[in-house]
């Protein structure tokens, strides 16, 4: 494996150390743990804190999103592994004086189990904390079973919109409601083009032939709509957008926020071509778009691939989407 690291066991800690040093004006470690990333300048305790616990290896999410207008804390797990419920609870405890606390959890087995444990501990300690489960990947479960779906790139909408609203002092219950609404209006579909390498095992994460792509594959190689031969951007986008449109009933005049997320090795050149075709597709159905985000935000090492996420938005969501944030790695 050709990665520039030091000791394998130190990957996460070396990375976080570098991150904090590079952005010390905005982020810092918590006093008791070098796996809890906080804002340098915490939010007013009258506001609801927004936290997430997730595994590393997908940078910049989520540590790169700690900052004003976004997250208050990221509890960082080992590569591809959720942090323990104990550590997540430690993170929640930092905000016990806040008026409320929301723990965002992406729907993956480890994240959910440990997140639920943390919330149980929080409630036992009378901390006003709740969990918001996030899921959006249409390939992982059929319509009607949305809550079985994996959390994918579309969870970004929840992070940003709730981050912005919590900054305005909105209370926890309202934030949770909005979060669920945004979740219900979000659809994501991904495609895998080539596998990256796990820094832990040194092995490829999944296997694809040179001329194959896999639509709907999960970040760790889980299946979706099956393997296909690689074809043009237009053809691929048509396939993917058709699937998204099968899953959610968009109407003429809807305004969607598109997010094209690269998984690490797909060039900006390609992502822009892709976006060009996405917009043509939307135009066909007379659907408008608003402030698209095109970047590599939720990566899987150096995997090639991307996902299309669409949020069927309302005005409130759009305003919150574009409100400013000082998180080191979130830029619209």
């Amino acid at each position, binding site marked *: 494996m050709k990665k520039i690291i030091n000791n394998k066991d130190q990957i996460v800690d070396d990375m976080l150390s570098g991150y904090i040093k590079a952005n010390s004006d905005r982020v810092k470690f918590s006093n008791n743990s070098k796996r809890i990333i906080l804002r340098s300048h915490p939010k007013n305790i009258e506001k609801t804190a927004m936290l997430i616990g997730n595994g590393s290896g997908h940078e910049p999410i989520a540590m790169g999103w700690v900052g004003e207008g976004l997250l208050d804390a990221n509890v960082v797990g*080992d590569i591809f*592994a*959720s942090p323990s419920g104990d550590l997540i609870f430690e993170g929640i405890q930092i905000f016990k004086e806040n008026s409320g606390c929301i723990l965002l959890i992406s729907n993956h*087995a480890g994240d959910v189990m440990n997140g639920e444990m943390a919330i149980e501990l929080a409630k036992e300690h009378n901390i006003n904390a709740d969990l918001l489960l996030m899921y959006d990947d249409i390939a992982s479960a059929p319509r009607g079973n949305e809550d079985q779906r994996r959390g994918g790139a579309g969870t970004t909408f929840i992070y940003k919109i709730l981050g912005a609203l919590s900054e305005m002092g909105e209370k926890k219950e309202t934030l949770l409601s909005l979060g669920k609404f945004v979740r219900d209006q979000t659809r994501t579909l991904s495609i895998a083009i080539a596998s990256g390498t*796990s820094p832990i095992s040194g092995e490829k994460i999944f296997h694809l032939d040179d001329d194959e792509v896999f639509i709907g594959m999960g970040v760790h190689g*889980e299946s979706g709509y099956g393997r296909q031969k690689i074809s043009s951007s237009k053809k691929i986008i048509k396939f993917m957008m058709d699937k998204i449109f099968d899953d959610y009933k968009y109407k003429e005049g809807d305004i969607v926020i598109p997010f094209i997320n690269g998984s690490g090795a797909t060039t900006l050149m390609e992502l822009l071509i892709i976006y060009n075709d996405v917009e043509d597709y939307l135009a066909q159905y007379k659907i408008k778009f608003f402030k698209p985000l095109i970047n590599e935000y939720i990566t899987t090492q150096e995997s090639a691939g991307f996902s299309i996420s669409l949020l069927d938005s309302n005005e409130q969501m759009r305003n919150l989407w574009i409100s400013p944030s000082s998180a080191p790695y979130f830029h619209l």
Partner: protein
Amino acid sequence: MHSAYKKWILNSYDKINSDYVELDKLDQLVGDGDHGSTIYKGITIAKQLYLNNLTSPLDETMAIISKQMRIEMGGASGILMSIFFDESGKIDKSNLNSSIIDIFEKSIDKIMKRGKVKAGDKSILDIYIPVLNFLKKNSDFQFKKNEINEILSLSLAKTKEMQAQVGRAKFLENRGLGFIDPGAKSTEIILREYFGSLL
């Protein structure tokens, strides 16, 4: 009991130390290829903590070990596999059979609640539950190591033909059919050493 448990943990460490690459490979098929390395982290910390707590009461030691394993391992395997270690601290030498049965019942109950998993979903439960059934059927007799080993092997082999309903494998094209669940394999190792040291 302390000497039996010491043997259990040290032996488990040795076995996982030599097998973790193979366990990683099993996980390669259905996950990230890191289950072996993860459980190795966990059992390493268990060994260290055990040796540093020889004079403490067993239930306290096992509770500490369970918590640290969970923290060290993280993920789904950390939170689920550490449960047995915690419950195992409640062994009662004077009531061996019934306390072992109790340990298994409580572990299974907690795993089911935490993991929202049941028998046949292709998880570590598919090792624990057949063992519990065997223990209950034979509760009036001395438990025999070789019979339990047979149950462990058979249960593990059975997971091959199961389709995963939980965890990452459930998203695979074939839901992991034809492959042994890596968590079930490491559980089998740990339980084999457990009964090997205790009986």
